[in-house]
């Protein structure tokens, strides 16, 4: 039974990429997508994912508020996928305090063929680690 993952990003391009990266791992399954915090809360309630790949900068409800509200709703694990949340930044501190498992930057270099091996592998690796799957 693969682990259920919800991908949250306001950009279709980003979501498409992340889904593509996750699809490479048979232990992981993207069960849904959301484009902002409000939709995320709804989808978490509906889909009850095991892991959330969460962006920070989103219109409407941002990632931090979403994390705070989620905390009251679900024990779902969260990995932040955002270039805003570089280590040491305000958002990173906040996210960690709220129990984010890890913070990774967004995938890049779609055109270079090493997407899946470099940044892509980060997403899969951290996700597996967050879910307690062997690396």
């Amino acid at each position: 039974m693969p682990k259920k993952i919800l991908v949250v990003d306001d950009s279709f391009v980003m979501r498409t990429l992340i889904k593509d990266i996750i699809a490479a791992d048979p232990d992981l399954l993207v069960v849904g997508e959301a484009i902002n915090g409000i939709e995320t809360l709804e989808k978490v309630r509906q889909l009850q994912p095991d892991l959330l790949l969460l962006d920070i900068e989103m219109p409407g409800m941002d990632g931090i508020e979403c994390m705070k509200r989620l905390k009251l709703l679900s024990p779902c694990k969260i990995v932040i996928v955002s270039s805003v949340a570089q280590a040491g930044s305000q958002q990173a501190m906040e996210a960690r305090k709220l129990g984010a498992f890890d913070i990774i930057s967004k995938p890049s270099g779609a055109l270079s063929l090493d997407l899946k091996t470099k940044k892509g592998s980060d997403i899969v690796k951290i996700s597996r680690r967050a879910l307690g799957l062997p690396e």
Partner: protein
Amino acid sequence: MNDFIENLWSQFAIETQEHIEEIELHLVEAEQNGASAELVASLFRAFHSLKGLATVMDMNSFARMAHRAEDILGVIRDGEFPMNSDVVSLLLAALDEMKMLRLSAVTSHTNSDANAQLLEHLSETFTSMECSVVPRNAAVYTETHPDEPLQNDPEMLNYFVELAREKIAVISHMLDPLCTLTERADLLKSPEYVALAAEEIEQLSYAAKTMDFLNLVVILAHLRDALSQESPFTGDQQKALTESLWELHDQIRYIEQSSGNPDAGANSLHAILTDVMHVNVQRLFTRVLDHLDVLQFGGMDDDDLLTAQSLQADLSGLNSHLAFFMYNPACNIILMLEDVFSRAARGELHLFGEILEMTREEITHVMEHYRDCSDGGSCVRDDAEIARNLQRIHDYIWAYESGCGVVNPIETFRQFMGELNIEPELLKILSPENVRDLMQALEKGEQIYEVTAHLESNEEMTARFLAWIETGRSRIITNRSLFIDDMSWYQMLMVSPMSRTEISQSIKAIDPGGTYLNLKPWSGGIPEREKLLKAIEEAPERQQRIIEPVAASSNVIRVQGETLDGFMNLIGEMVLARSRLSHIIHHERLSRQIARLKQLRTGNNADSEEVLELLVEHRRDLMEADQLLNDSLRRLQASAVGLRVVPVEMVFKRLPRMVRDLSQSQGKRVRLEMAGQDVKIDKAMVEILTDPLLHMIRNSIDHGVEMPEVRALAGKSKEAVIRVSATQRGSGIIIEISDDGIGIDVDKVLDKAIERGLVQRETAPSLSREAILRFIFEPGFSTAAVVTETSGRGVGLDVVMTNVMRLGGSISIDSTAGRGSTFTLGMPLSAAIQEVLMVETAGTVLALPGRYVAEVVEIAADDLQSVRGEQAILLRGAFLPLHRLSALLGYPAAAPERSDGIAVVLTNGSQTIGLAVDKVLRRQELFIKDIQESVTAIPGVGGASVLGNGRVVLILDGEDLLRIAKSGSRRR
């Protein structure tokens, strides 16, 4: 290049275009109207997204440009730097550059070099902006401790409060029917429903756990437990549930107070719980009264002990509920009553009618009091009265307690007094209070005497006697009147500290002749207090269950309503059969033939002579038997009607709630006073009466009762009073509905009636007040405009009138402008038997309801007139529209219409017509058979019955006939 990448490129084109357009719009907006924080944030986000998208697609120049812009907006977003026109220009330049870079990216998927000068400019601007900023981000974040509970984070607390409010709204909405145990409750107590409610609770509990609100977690667990009990949902579960909700309410209230958040849902819980309390109180009141009914009027098969037990439980519930709404000594009465019925449930106290009546009175008082309190009215009750009533109940317990070794002192007392030769009838009427007084007197060493006095013949003696009683030390405990030799006497039980000799002397002084006063001699010697007390102590065991509450059960049986209906129908059939028999016996032809035979007899044929005699004798016997049968049938019918009666309270009990709801919704204050609830009406009348009554009360509140301020201005009390009373009069009941509202202005009604052409201006002065007021029952007569001058929900009183008439009732009205109105509703006791006038038309026998028939007139050809093309007869100087009954009913005209004949004058009080018929047969009473819809669907027909000759006869509907006549003439 694969499809996947191709797809990414096209999405990149769309998204970047969207962001660029948004940025352009926002920048222009910022320059014109200044930049709001929100605007800056979305600009920042848009550049940030552009940067991300470019990074993904390896468009590094584009990404760098976006990054610079994002940096600048970051500083502005944090409020460190204003968004001035220089910045806007710079950002617009960057945007233009990015548009070009995007174009090359989208078309050729290549990364062109960015304008280095512009990049440099952006970097410099950013650096200069940042240098002017005191860095402090780090300082902010060292202050937070990772281990700090989340409830200390005000933002988290806000989110929690928001969530709690939402969840509690849902939870309380879902649990409301379960708490109030309304009919919906059973329906909702499905596993799915419970699961749904439990899920909501679970979610709130999860959030509470996250926030470390551990008390709340425990309470929510209680709530879940209370909910997850097995169906059906019982009173105990309801109690547990309500208690958990109260706990939840308290805890949420605490969170609200400690967080400074005014609404985390405690209010919605409180509203629901208060509702629940009110519903429960209402239900408990009803149940208590129901139990009392069972105890008072119930059948033999009722288990009184069990009923008493339920009653006690309900009183207990009532007590705890009422204590929530009102603190006052009134609750003590409930407490005391609870004691009464808990003793009764243990078989230690006998429930005589007296205590049940007392309970009913007290409950009614408390109910009124509770209503006043919850309406915000006066909440004060006379303490002395309460104390008095408490004493009464206490006395009762004391007097009738029995069982478990305790003897009933009242019975022992009676026995003892009986031995003393005191009139048993006097002892029978002793109340517990009397016995208590007697006991106290005996304990003080006083003596008991029986005195019989005739006080109506000798005034001087009477005055002396009364003065002696008043000023002396003797007291009358109880008395009864009796007749001896056509004179009325008072037999009195008296206590006095005086000795028998002293009493004798006093009496002799008052009545020297010994004619009017009589002191009864003891037969068993002088009563001694010790002897009595000893007798009470040693009262034999057998007295433990002395008398069952006779009135309550032993001679009352319960019968199903349907059984009674069947019984009534059977009697109805017997009445019909009897009249058929009578019809045969009184057959005209037989009479004629017998008379003829008598004339023809010759006296020489002994056989035929004998036959004739036998025939005559037989017929006389039959007539006698028929008369006897008729008499007993009438009595049977009367008592059967009596069996079907129920107290009018069945109708009245719906009123208080309605009055309360209506007056509240209109901001009016109304007190409802009811009287005569115990007047009995036919069971079938309950439904029939309810609608008109509700309608009329609604009418009173809507149009009669003024707003409190208006009342105050008019010098009335702010609270209006609506009185509803029932009285029995002859074979019907009268229900009076009166209010002290604005009343009806007779002149305005008259003006309106003239305006509407209901009456001629010339004839108006001759109209009686009552006649004028009756106009408000006219269809479409806008009562609102006349009565209250508020825009009208002028509910048709004409509808009420029509329905009441149809059922054989009547309405009258009296009103004084500014003082109020009184509607009087007269209804027959039974709706099943109707008096009718039998007529024949077009060869068919029909029954006209008697109450619509004003008179029967003969039509002479001269009286016939044609008025505006319609036939009319001149009756006492006025034209009366004439219709042929057969034509009204749509029967084909069998014979050419006769121009003379007989007309029945049909009226409902406002409309009068003449009905031409061929024959008027007789007036008689008909028992209306179960009316079939197919019959009543015929216009003009209201029901059917079976005649004595077995023929079915249609009973016409007077109201319908008048309507057809009216519309018919309009059509023509």
